[in-house]
């Protein structure tokens, strides 16, 4: 079915003459065949947003309706790849087109020729249904790619190939479902705007450990949870997103750079292959999928990119993996939505964003979750969305609507960032609604004292801010000694625990055990000193300079050396306690 362009305005075109067109159909627009999607039907005309640069497009050029909604290709080869917002592989485009991206480039998302080693896990005459595994492929050093029966398919296996090397389009198995034959291949497709189904959503009870102390200790995110990271520019959103992509203990990371800087994607591409996963010691790139639609790439593809990313995340979840998705930044996605809405001359809602912004955000974050899968296994998608509020003011619509649908809020603070306190997560404003649900896990897996330790440390930080307000009025000297001690210990927590240097080889990642030891020793110091202060000793005469130095160095101490470092701190503490008491 061919139509004709009758209007062009930026990335929005109006097409006439597509008789069977349906909402959300993918179109190929113009003589160059630019990828686009129908976003509105109006009488005989279809209005489409174009995912490529429309410069040079003319009225009257032909438009082809593919008859299918915008979809992503799923199969082995996703891991380690970098795609644009509509899943064109950027490395292949570079080989074909050079360093700059032109428009109208057609490339298959997945390599058709590459052979993958397939190991069958099912046999002939076996009854299988959607979600069941029929075989696996070693996709990377870390990931076993499961070939599963697609949604809506079931039947008896009539034929399945033997172990061997196959390309993604070769038939691996034939199912007979009540006379209806279905051929199963590695390659499947899925429309990006629909969530892939699961059997049942499960409660979030396991933390997604990130190796970042302020997050794991105070504001944890659960496996299958959702978090929002709003912050002004320069507050370190991207560094946090990168840190989570590097160190979180998800099996697979999908990193979606939406409308952000090109050099940030380059940084991932150049550092990830050299970084080692702390659990397996394998290169991080072997568990990472990158989606890059940088700020200068076409705006409509930016809108599509987060759907492409989450569909890929769901696909790996369906194999039983825990997947973490970082979207940096969802504000750019919302702005793309606003721009397109403006071109459609829709009635604007708040700050020019379309009225359906909240619904779209809700739909997106709802695709996160830990779930019982169709095949019976469990898997999860955790979503961490960076938000870039104008002027850092989170009263704007994107931040507010995001906070309503996410359960963790890491509030990035410009004044912390300005004094180079990183990660600049404000410990007084941030929250995690998972804390209580996760306490049980921490209690069993980290230490019985953990929930208590965490609460006491947080209480000290809260108290510090109260005391500081008083100190501003009366001066530090007029404070009671007990309060001075709180300030002293809170400073240690802030400087030696909450702060973490993403660029230091050791400090960049703290195991939960290391976090436990560090927090424990800081609170021990508080207990010991509190006893001394209660006994009449003045804070300024506490002989703790050496201990403070030793605690400050724990951040930079290797995991295997922590034990001995702690032991010497304890000895030192006992010595002082004795000496000063006596």
């Amino acid at each position, binding site marked *: 079915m061919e139509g004709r362009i009758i209007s062009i305005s930026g990335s929005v075109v109006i097409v006439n003459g597509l008789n069977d067109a349906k909402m959300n159909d993918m179109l190929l627009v113009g003589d160059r065949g630019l990828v686009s999607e129908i976003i509105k039907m109006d009488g005989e005309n279809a209005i489409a947003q174009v995912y490529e640069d429309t410069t040079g497009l003319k*009225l009257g050029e032909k438009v082809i309706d593919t008859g299918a909604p915008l979809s992503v290709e799923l199969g082995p080869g996703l891991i380690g790849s970098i795609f644009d917002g509509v899943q064109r592989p950027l490395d292949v485009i570079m080989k074909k087109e050079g360093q700059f991206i032109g428009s109208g480039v057609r490339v298959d998302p997945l390599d058709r020729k590459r052979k993958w080693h397939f190991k069958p896990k099912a046999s002939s005459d076996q009854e299988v249904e959607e979600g069941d595994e029929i075989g696996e492929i070693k996709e990377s050093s870390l990931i076993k790619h499961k070939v599963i029966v697609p949604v809506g398919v079931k039947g008896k296996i009539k034929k399945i190939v033997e172990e061997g090397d196959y390309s993604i389009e070769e038939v691996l198995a034939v199912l007979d479902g009540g006379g209806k034959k279905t051929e199963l291949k590695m390659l499947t497709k899925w429309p990006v705007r629909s969530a892939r189904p699961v059997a049942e959503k499960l409660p979030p009870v396991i933390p997604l450990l990130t190796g970042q102390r302020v997050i794991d200790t105070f504001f944890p995110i659960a496996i299958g949870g959702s978090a929002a990271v709003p912050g002004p520019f320069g507050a370190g959103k991207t560094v946090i997103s990168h840190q989570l992509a590097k160190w979180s203990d998800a099996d697979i990371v999908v990193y979606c750079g939406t409308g952000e800087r090109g050099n940030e994607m380059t940084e991932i591409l150049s550092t990830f292959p050299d970084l080692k996963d702390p659990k397996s010691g394998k290169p991080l790139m072997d568990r990472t999928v990158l989606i890059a639609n940088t700020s200068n790439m076409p705006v409509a593809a930016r809108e599509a990119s987060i759907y492409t990313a989450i569909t890929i995340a769901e696909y790996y979840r369906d194999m039983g993996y825990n997947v973490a998705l970082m979207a940096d930044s969802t504000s750019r996605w919302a702005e793309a939505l606003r721009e397109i809405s403006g071109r459609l001359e829709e009635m604007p809602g708040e700050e020019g964003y379309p009225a359906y912004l909240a619904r779209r955000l809700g739909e997106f974050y709802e695709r996160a979750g830990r779930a019982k899968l169709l095949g019976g296994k469990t898997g999860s998608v955790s979503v961490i969305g960076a938000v870039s509020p104008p002027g850092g003011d989170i009263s704007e619509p994107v931040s507010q609507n995001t906070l309503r649908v996410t359960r963790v809020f890491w509030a990035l603070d410009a004044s912390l960032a300005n004094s180079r306190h990183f990660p600049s997560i404000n410990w007084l404003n941030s929250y995690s609604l998972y804390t209580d649900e996760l306490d049980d896990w921490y209690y069993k897996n980290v230490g019985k004292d953990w929930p208590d330790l965490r609460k006491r440390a947080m209480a000290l930080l809260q108290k510090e801010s109260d005391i500081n307000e008083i100190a501003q009025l009366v001066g530090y000297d007029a404070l009671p000694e007990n309060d001075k001690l709180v300030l002293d210990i809170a400073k240690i927590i802030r400087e030696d625990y909450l702060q973490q240097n993403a660029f230091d080889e050791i400090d960049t990642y703290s195991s939960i055990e290391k976090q436990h030891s560090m927090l424990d020793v800081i609170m021990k110091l508080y207990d010991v000193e509190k006893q001394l202060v209660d006994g009449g000793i003045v804070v300024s005469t506490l002989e703790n300079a050496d201990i403070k130095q030793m605690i400050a160095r724990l951040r930079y101490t290797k995991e295997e050396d922590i034990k001995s470092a702690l032991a010497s701190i304890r000895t030192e503490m006992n010595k002082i306690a004795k000496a000063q008491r006596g």
Partner: protein
Amino acid sequence: MAKIEYKTVKTVTNVLLFVNGIKEASYGELAEIELEDGRVVNGQVLSTNEEVTVLQVFGETSGMDTERTKVRFSGSTFKLQTGPELIGRVLDGMGKPRDGGVPVYSDQKRDINGSPINPYAREEPSEFIQTGISSIDCMNTLVRGQKLPIFSGSGLPHNKLAAQIVRQAKIPSKKENFYVVFGGIGINSEDANFFMDEFKKSGAMERTIAFINLAAEPSMERLILPRLALTAAEYLAFEKDAHVIVILVDMTNYCEALREISAAREEVPGRRGYPGYMYTDLASIFERAGKLKGKPGSITQMPMLTMPSDDITHPIPDLTGYITEGQIVMSRQLDKNGIYPPIDLLLSLSRLMNQGVGKDSTREDHKNLSDQLYAAYAKGKQVRSLTEIVGEDALSESDRKYLRFSDEFEKKFINQDFSENRKIEETLDLGWELLSILDKSDMKRIKPEFLEKYGKWKQA
């Protein structure tokens, strides 16, 4: 190709032309508009449908009418003719000579909108550029291929700083082909002359291509100018393998022009009347900085903008800060105190600093030292504001040291002469010297081995 002339102009506004019944126009195409008196003005297709085509006019619409004005479509988008003849020239906002020389003709034409760089084809910028300015080199290191804007306010010496950077910027121990592309967007003629004089004095002029649109010239040209400048820069960087530094002054004028055209098109305005797509539009300029795999050249951008009423949350600096890789922020208070360059370090940031510093490029202690200076200066400024409430006598011994540190830091470290070109080693040593005002035990950001090796504390 025989050119068809259309005489179907329906509406003329300040900056737009609505033409009826054009079937041939393509989106983004360049058109020539001929007035009755023979004057020819350029325009560009903003949108087109079967009834009406909207043209944005680069230049004056005064004198246009709906009967005699003729429109011809060029069949292509705006292109700049590039070649070695461009070097040393001063052109206007449409790429025509303004230095009295002959127009530049070349076989090679480049679309001024460029194409987005494939993120996969980028090479991570990591080469340190020494600007000789301590607050940049040590605290907000600039690297080749970075886009680092200067956020200034009216009346602050941003032009001086930009000129000083151009004069001093170099990579230590390297002599390579280095060019400057200067884009003056809606600046006044005094500023334009200042830059031209400075470039001539420092000898940079013969390595400069300048595009200048003065404040009194058509504002729509300001939307074209940065794209011309970057097209010229791309030619030098990716074809001539040169290292190019692009100075764009003042991006605020660019954004004003963008707002003007958006208002004329009756678009739904975003914050403060600026169009909702301003982020994307600015990104299409700033993202044209960088390095490419397999190419030796680079484009480093230093755009300059004035923050309306010194407000960093104003949409122009705000959106810019979200796109660029950091920012250098000017402080009116430092300027009043006679500090030059008046760089507000706490608000400034270079995101690519980590890649450009360290053992192999500057010195191993650089990052630690700069983190510590940042923390100490932040603390010192905090103490200073506390002093205003409680008085200096109420300060603890340690707080007093921080106060002294931040005073000295501003006077000796941030402050330097317009002609002073500090080597990175000098800058770093100066930082260590100032740190020795403070207690060694407070140096939590610095690895112990660096404290021993570079610290300037007197042995107790």
